[in-house]
């Protein structure tokens, strides 16, 4: 067996060559990790428009976000004016919200991690757990063709996850996610995320549009990435509860 380090190097090698032919040494966790960290890099900065539609209202938020590695993430609302300055900070498994109107920082309790993030169809859990998918799940290749892969992910028995199954459709060249389906514990499909409008940013390809669709109701959240930049140097203190409050 190859050691993980060699596997990973091999995988990077494969990636850099962007080999069109199927590889017998396909490392599924590494592939998923690569897909899940598409938007992150060493660090990132982005402007995002989030359009949320529910049965009762429709609204558009403009957000500025920063990330560093997989464990640090900060997002601040720019618009609408009523919520300007509302911010979310993620450090590893914990999430804090800052509310400028009352000038308070609020830590999200574990019991509320399933709650909506900024009113969207993403949850606080999505922020936290997405980065551990390659560790929390085991993977199985369902299909492979010239276009890409279809990969099934099942949670490890002891993994602290909310889903019963995930199915990834991944595009081969460029390497980007196309669709992720989320199933609950009864294996009923609950939610889909679609990715499209792939653009090249620096040396990587990014789907600039991400559509989150819960299947039980006719609602959706659309994320549109703008001005996404990677691998810039961010001040370390940016990702701290104190700076969350300062701005």
């Amino acid at each position, binding site marked *: 067996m190859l050691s993980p380090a060699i596997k990973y190097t091999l995988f990077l090698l494969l990636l850099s060559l962007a080999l069109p032919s199927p590889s017998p040494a396909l490392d599924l966790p590494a592939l998923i990790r690569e897909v899940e960290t598409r938007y992150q890099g060493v660090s990132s900065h982005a402007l995002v428009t989030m359009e*949320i539609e*529910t*049965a*009762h*209202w*429709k*609204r558009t938020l403009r957000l500025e976000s920063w990330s560093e590695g997989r464990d640090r993430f900060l997002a601040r609302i720019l618009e*609408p004016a*009523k*919520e300007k300055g*509302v911010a979310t900070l993620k450090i590893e498994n914990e999430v804090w*919200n800052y*509310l400028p*109107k*009352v000038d*308070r920082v*609020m*830590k*999200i*309790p574990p*019991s*509320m991690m399933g709650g*909506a993030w*900024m*009113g969207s169809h993403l949850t606080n859990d999505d922020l936290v757990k997405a980065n551990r998918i390659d560790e929390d799940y085991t993977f199985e290749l369902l299909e492979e063709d010239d276009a890409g892969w279809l990969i099934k992910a099942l949670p490890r028995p002891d993994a602290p996850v909310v889903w019963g199954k995930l199915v990834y459709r991944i595009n081969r060249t460029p390497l980007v996610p196309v669709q992720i389906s989320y199933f609950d514990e009864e294996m009923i499909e609950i939610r889909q995320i679609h990715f499209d409008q792939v653009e090249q940013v620096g040396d990587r390809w990014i789907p600039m549009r991400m559509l989150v669709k819960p299947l039980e109701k006719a609602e959706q959240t659309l994320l549109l990435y703008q001005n996404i930049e990677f691998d810039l140097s961010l001040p370390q203190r940016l990702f701290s509860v104190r700076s969350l409050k300062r701005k």
Partner: protein
Amino acid sequence: MLWQMAVRNLWRNWRRTLLTMSALVISVSLLILSLGVFSGMFADMLASATQQYHGHIVISKLGYQEQRQLHDTMQYDQHVIDQLQATSDVYGVSPRLRGFGLLSRDEQTEPAELLGIEPGRERQVTSLNEMIVAGVFPEETRGNWIVLGSGLADKLEVIPGDELVFVTQAADGSIGNDLLIVRGVFKSGDFNRDNSLALVSLAWLQQLLVLPEMLHEISLSINTPMEATPVAKQLAMQFPDTMEVIDWGRLLPEMQEAIASYDVSRLILVLILYAAAGLGVLNTFFMSVLERVREFGVLLAIGMKPSSIRNLVLLESLILGGLSLLVGSGSGVLLTVLLSGDGIDLSRWMTAVTYAGGTIPPRLRAELVADNLLIPCVTLLLVSLFAGYLPARRASRLRPIAALRGD
């Protein structure tokens, strides 16, 4: 004449008659009392369950009580409220709005249910204002006050005067957040309520949730809680089909089941107690009939009809039963009345028990309910008739010659 004879016969062996009577009297009066205590307990439970939260009848959008969807609202209509208040059975009318979200102070954040109320109206429906253990129950209709359950206050580590932040998603999708000042802490004894419920002003919550002039429900208290179902039916006619008028039986199905099962166990209790008492009466009358075989023989010999003999013995048992019933139910009612009102405080020996959504306070208190008097009385008459019938039949079937001979 039969009547006179029956009384004389009873009086002839007055010791035995009195002993039998006293057994009946005690069983009737204790039965009435214990049924009264049961009723008192259930009345307390029902009162606590409805007065802590629901009220007796709740009017809301169809399906709201199951789903508690933020958008299932109705207009705050002063005219409707006044009209409800003017209904004869209705005591209190409280318009409410409900919001779920996070309450936070410093590092502590807890999920909570916020009930927006008008304090003056709410106190006529629930009695949370009497359960304040710290601070006060606010009087103002407006303002950013909050009254928390004691468990919630402990978890958030707040006391009256402290600040809390509430965050939720408003009806327009925006992030509703505001500061609240803790005004009071209540303790209802219900674990779930004390750990998750908080009261705020209706006007404040309407603004936070961006639901101006909107309500989720109108909660009512009525003068006769046990009559909630017909009252709710009556009220429902005033509202369109998109609304529902629900009585406490549907809001608290466990409570209704508990009361229904009590109705059955009440009958079983009556049967057991009276089976014993009935055997006592049966025994007495068999004895008295056997004693008087010769006497009955004489009566038959001088031409009394067997049916009259039977009626005589039956009449004796009925008089015995009737007298016991009068004395027994009298003393039973007296005992019940003595134990009604505040009852006997047992808080030194036991704490409140939460059961079927209600709280049984630590006290012995009885309540006088017509059924609790009627059921024992009717059953007692039937039992004494039955217990008298067998000996009476035996007496009427005596053959004069054999009876005179004393066989």
